[in-house]
Structures are given as structure tokens and as C-alpha cells.
């Protein structure tokens, strides 16, 4: 049996009296696209924030490649090779596209000069940023010297996705990556996800868009009330079943769950 890249066990996270995660579990296998779906307040975003170190869980385990980890800040999950596109996109509006892509990991000039002056290598970063943006196939961003606030919602999302894709080494997490995108840009992001999968990079995607989820996902995890309500595959279940589980109208039998089926 294939070992999971990422395992989350019994994660609990509360905000005061609000219980966001009530013993959430998750397994992510190499090379798969795992979709997480659920109603509002089901704890999807909190779950991925705990994985990426943006939030600290009250209790529970996060295991990467068999070793338990504990991320206190985003920097630590990045070092472990996990990149996340947050729902809020986490971009700095007044900075340009290049600055946003390299935010928090600016490249300094080499040599003694770079050490003394602490000067950033702007031309190198610009070149790389251009490469990342064009490799996404999203040509709508003409000028990477543009401030992000002058971009449309879809273009901003493209910047956030490009940043995550460029630096991800092990796992990539996308929270509503197509929410602000048009039809054409959405399909570009979807083909990008398939592309990542073909590179062997496992992807976690949160989405409300069922057709998209069924198009890209290998497995679909359904969150309900801060827990995993079940895991299905697009082959064995249809959208109606998923929505029924999401809303609590249907309970999955244990034998129906395809927890360990890896494509």
C-alpha cells in the first residue's frame, strides 16, 4: 500500500466558543488531486490553514512523510515544501507582480557587494517572475511591473497561483483557486492542476464548484461540521451524493468510502 505524503489526525481548533475543527482527518497520497468540499463553516479553510502553519491547531497530529511536524508560522511549512494559495490571496496590493511573487523570500545580490549593501537582485527576480507567469499560460498580465491592485480579480488570483506553483516542492494547497476567475482562466487553472499532477506533485484543492471538482479530483473529501464526513471518488459517486453528504441528508457507509483507493 502506498504511504500518504500528508496525514492529518484528529485535528481540533477552536476560536473561543466556536469549534472550527472537531477532530478533522485527512490523507493525501503521492501524485493525487484531493478535493475538499463542504458547506460554509465546515472547517475547510481552517483545516488548510493548520496544515500551512497560518493557524496552530489546539490538538491533533500533522504527519508529513511519516514524520510528525508542528508548524508555528507559514515560513516553516514553506521550508517543508508546502505552498498555499489562500482564499484571501494574501497579496500586497501596492507592490508589483514581481514583488508579490517573491514576497517573504526576496533574492539578494550575490557576493560581498550583496552582503554589504543587502541589495535585492531585482533583475533576476523580474526575469523569474516573468517566467512563472508565462509558464502558467495566463497571458492577461502584460506587465509584471504593474501594482497588483491595478489587476483584475482573476489576474490577482493568477499571481497568487503562480507564486505557489513556482515554489512548491512537495504539496500544493489551493483554497478556492477559481473563485474569481472567468471561464477561460478557470480552465487554465484546472489544466495547471492536472499539469502539477503529471509532475507528481500532490494537490489539495478546496472548491465550491462541483463540476470542476469532479473534473480534476481523484478523490473528494467531504467536510461537515468540522469533521470528515466521508471520502468518495468521482467514479463511484455523483454530484448528488456529494451534496447529500455535505448537507447531512446522506450518511456514507464505511464500505462505500474509498479511503485508500489511489489512482
Amino acid at each position: 500500500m502506498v504511504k500518504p505524503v500528508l496525514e492529518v489526525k484528529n485535528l481540533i481548533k477552536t476560536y473561543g466558543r466556536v469549534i472550527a475543527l472537531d477532530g478533522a482527518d485527512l490523507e493525501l497520497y503521492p501524485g493525487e488531486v484531493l478535493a475538499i468540499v463542504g458547506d460554509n463553516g465546515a472547517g475547510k479553510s481552517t483545516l488548510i490553514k493548520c496544515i500551512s502553519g497560518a493557524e496552530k491547531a489546539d490538538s491533533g497530529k500533522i504527519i508529513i512523510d511519516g514524520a510528525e511536524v508542528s508548524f508555528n508560522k507559514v515560513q516553516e511549512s514553506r521550508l517543508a515544501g508546502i505552498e498555499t494559495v489562500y482564499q484571501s490571496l494574501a497579496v500586497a496590493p501596492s507592490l508589483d507582480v514581481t514583488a508579490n511573487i517573491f514576497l517573504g523570500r526576496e533574492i539578494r545580490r550575490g557576493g560581498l557587494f550583496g552582503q554589504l549593501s543587502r541589495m535585492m537582485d531585482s533583475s533576476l527576480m523580474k526575469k523569474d517572475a516573468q517566467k512563472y507567469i508565462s509558464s502558467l499560460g495566463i497571458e492577461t498580465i502584460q506587465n509584471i511591473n504593474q501594482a497588483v491592485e491595478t489587476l483584475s480579480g482573476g489576474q490577482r488570483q493568477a499571481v497568487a497561483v503562480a507564486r505557489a506553483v513556482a515554489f512548491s516542492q512537495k504539496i500544493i494547497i489551493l483554497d478556492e483557486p477559481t473563485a474569481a476567475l472567468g471561464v477561460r482562466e478557470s480552465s487554465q487553472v484546472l489544466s495547471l492542476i492536472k499539469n502539477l499532477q503529471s509532475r507528481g506533485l500532490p494537490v489539495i484543492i478546496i472548491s465550491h464548484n462541483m463540476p470542476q471538482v469532479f473534473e480534476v479530483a481523484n478523490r473528494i473529501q467531504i467536510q461537515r461540521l468540522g469533521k470528515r464526513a466521508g471520502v468518495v471518488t468521482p467514479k463511484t459517486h455523483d454530484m448528488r451524493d456529494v451534496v447529500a453528504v455535505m448537507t447531512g441528508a446522506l450518511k456514507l457507509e464505511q464500505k462505500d468510502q474509498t479511503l485508500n483507493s489511489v489512482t
Partner: protein
Amino acid sequence: MSKKSLESKQSDLTEFSSSISRIQIIQSYLHRYPWLSSASVLIMAIFSFSFFNSNFLTPGNLSLILQQVSIIGALALGQTIIILTGGIDLSCAAISVCCMMIMAKSGMGDPYIENDGLSIWLAFPLGIFIAALAGAFNGFLVTKFRLPPFIVTLGTLNIFIAITILYASGRSILENEIDPFLLELSNILKIGEFVVTYGVILMLLMYVFFAYSLRFTSWGRHIYAVGNDPEAARLSGISVNKVLMSAYLVAGLIFGLTSWIMIGRIMVASPNVPSDYNLVAITAVVIGGTSLFGGRGTVFGTLIGACIVGVFQNGLTLAGVDLTFQVLAIGILIIFAVTLDTWVRRVKV
């Protein structure tokens, strides 16, 4: 509907959109170069004042304006860094005055108990250290207890003023009592007909240094990112508290050096140095096009803003206008600058 009326409607529409876009072009330019509007205000002000008074545009008077600007300009530099992070420092001048008294008094000693005081090589670094400490204290309260910078620095403004007066025993230290090293920045350098004090040069050097740091180092970039959106900065892997702390600490250092410029300019160390410097420094930053909401602005703009304040004060004085009108003019400028900033931030291009 006939074809003709359709066509005329269409041309109306294109005309409408082109007039919109012209305003939008101005808006987007101001958006990209926030100092443009302040630079044009400065040029217009210089032009009109020289029109009213022939003495205004003489090298002597321009040198005087620069000297008058040196204190406000230096304070406004530290203020800019804090405002860029989305904060504000109401205590900036109080830190400088406190530092000035420490340097002057500890260096002088107490004649009543026949104490020679510290060597200036101890007194000077001590003053700067206290200023940095004061800045760090502001930063500590802002980051550790998550208090609004406005409230924190309103409190520390009063604390620093009180400490200064208590330490100075309410007494000023006169020129002949002050260590000559502290008055070093009053020396002048003649460039042609222009007379520049060392204080002005120190201020300009600090501007160059921080213009570089904010533009070309990752520290500067993180300052802007934190001012833009602290949560986004955190999710982007920036240690927001460290950045904020460094901003307040660095500003404290700048306010410390400002006190050196201050002594050189007013030639006396007094705990009662006008505390409206606090607000004038913020005025210079705002007029210079830096957004009070953080994340947008340049130190170059602040330098222009400080010059505008100086030019208005000097020009209106030369024109024989009552001091109250200077205050009025500065007030109008502030409202104008903030209105412009609010408009520019709504840019949609």
C-alpha cells in the same frame, strides 16, 4: 430607433469615456508617483512666493528655508517609516527632545555637586541609545499588546515629555554649557552662494540612506507589505511583528540623530522645545503623498512635503502675513493632501 440617433448616442458614449479616461490617467499617474502632486504644489508655492517678494528666491533665503526644514525633515523621515507600516508616531519630537536633554545634561554634569558629567563619547551614544529604546518601547506596545499606534504614542508622548522635564529639572542648558561636539552640526558649508549647515547635510544623508533601504532591500519591501495588509504579509511568510518592531526601533534612532540636528539649530537644550513638531512632522509626511493608511508613499515625497511646510512658513513670513494665516494655510494643505490620497487610492486602471 433610427440609425442616426444610434450613431450620435455612440459618439456621446465615446466622448464620455475619453473624458473619464483623461482624469483616470492623471489618477493612475498620481497613484504610481504619489509625490507628483506634492512636487507641483511645491513648485507653485515657490513660484507664487517669489512673485510677491523678490527676496524669496535668493540663495540666502533658500538656504535659510533648508535649515528651517532640517529638524522637521529629519523627524518626518522616521515618521514616514512608521506611517508606511500603517502606524503613526505622535511622540516623535518628544523622543528627540528627551534625547537632546540627555546628551546635553549628562555631558555637562551638575555644577552644584561639582560633577564633571560624562565624557561626550559616552553622553552622545547614551542619548541615541535612549532614543532607540524609546522607539522600541513604542514598538513593543504595538506588537506585544496589539494596541493601536495612535493610542500607544499618545500615551508615550506624555510619558516622554514628563520624563524629560523631570530629568532636566525644568532647566534649559545654554549654548556655553553644551559640549562643543553637540553643536558641531551648526557649522556651515558654503556652496557658491548657498549656505548649508552640517545638520542639513546629515538630514539629506539620512534621506538617501532610507530611500535606498526602502526601495532596494527586502526590509523596505516588507515595510510596505505590512502596511498594505498585515494578514496578507503574515500569510506570505513575513514576520509582521519583527518588521513593525524594526520600524519603530529605526525611527527611534532617526529621532535620536534628529536631536543632534535640533541642538545645532536652536543652540540650546530646552525641555520646552515646541512640541507641535510632533504634528508638523506628520503634516510633512501627509503632504508628501504618503498614505496614512500605510503601504504607499516615499521618503522623497516626505522631503518635498517638509519643504512645502518650510516654504509656506518662510514665504508667508516674508510676505508679512500673520502667523495665524500660516497655520490656516498648512491646515488647508493637509485636508487637500488627504482628499487627494483618498481619491488616488480608488484608482481602477
